[in-house]
């Protein structure tokens, strides 16, 4: 009985459950992963170019 009450109370806090069940959360994850992938590739390419310049010295 008490456990049941706790469970109901926890469920009462509004979270983005619908976004999760509809799968739209994957759209958000996809977007930020693409953005971060782009930034990571960019950083790696800066690193590579820097290595080239360091070798010339």
């Amino acid at each position, binding site marked *: 009985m008490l456990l049941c009450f706790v469970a109901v109370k*926890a*469920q009462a*806090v*509004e*979270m*983005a459950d619908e976004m999760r069940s509809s799968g739209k*959360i994957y759209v*958000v*994850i996809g977007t*930020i*992963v693409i953005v*971060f*992938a782009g930034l*990571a590739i960019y*950083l*790696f390419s*800066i*690193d590579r170019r*820097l*290595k080239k*310049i*360091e070798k010339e*010295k």
Partner: protein
Amino acid sequence: MKFIYQTWWKVLAVVIIFYTLVAGFLLGVPRLPILHETIRNTYFHVPMWIAMFTVFTISVIYSIKYLQSGKEEHDLIAVEAANTGIFFFVLGLITGMLWAKYAWGEYWSNDPKQNSAAIAFLLYCAYLVLRNSIDEEQKRAKISAIYNIFAFPVMVVLIMVLPRLTDSLHPGNGGNPAFGKLDMDDRMRIVLYPAFIAWALMAVWIATIRYRIRLIEYKKNAIN
């Protein structure tokens, strides 16, 4: 090959961040009023500060090393680590302010931790101003190294110690434990702690790139 030129830890940082991006949005979090889904900000806001602490620590280590060795390279590492730290400092402040608007009602509510973080920010801005105000190279390196050694512990006390002694809106202050049972559980820890490591590595990576550019500039100026 020296650590800063190796690739494996840069790949590691990127891979772990990808993990936190996916797991941070998919894994469950405690259902808390007021915070709701914004509790996930923890995965991104707090690591900015961890990243800042990491590069500021490196900065002060190399400031000490500079005073021992007098090598110009050590001073260059110290200044570029501090520059990167200030960048993550700004990110931490801005993300915190945005979150505060929705959790506490104001961008800036003069919370003790916010205020002391702002003071610590000025402390490090003063480091850069001090550097730029001295023309002579060795004098600049020496004075700013000493300043850095004093600024670092003051910054740690301002951000980590003083807010905990009074009431603060931040968790972990005024008696409630940071990352305690109330606001965090193990589902969050398996995302948060890897995020700490990854963003710390990320900050180190950016600092090393800045240092390597600075080193090339320095060598070029030394020849001419």
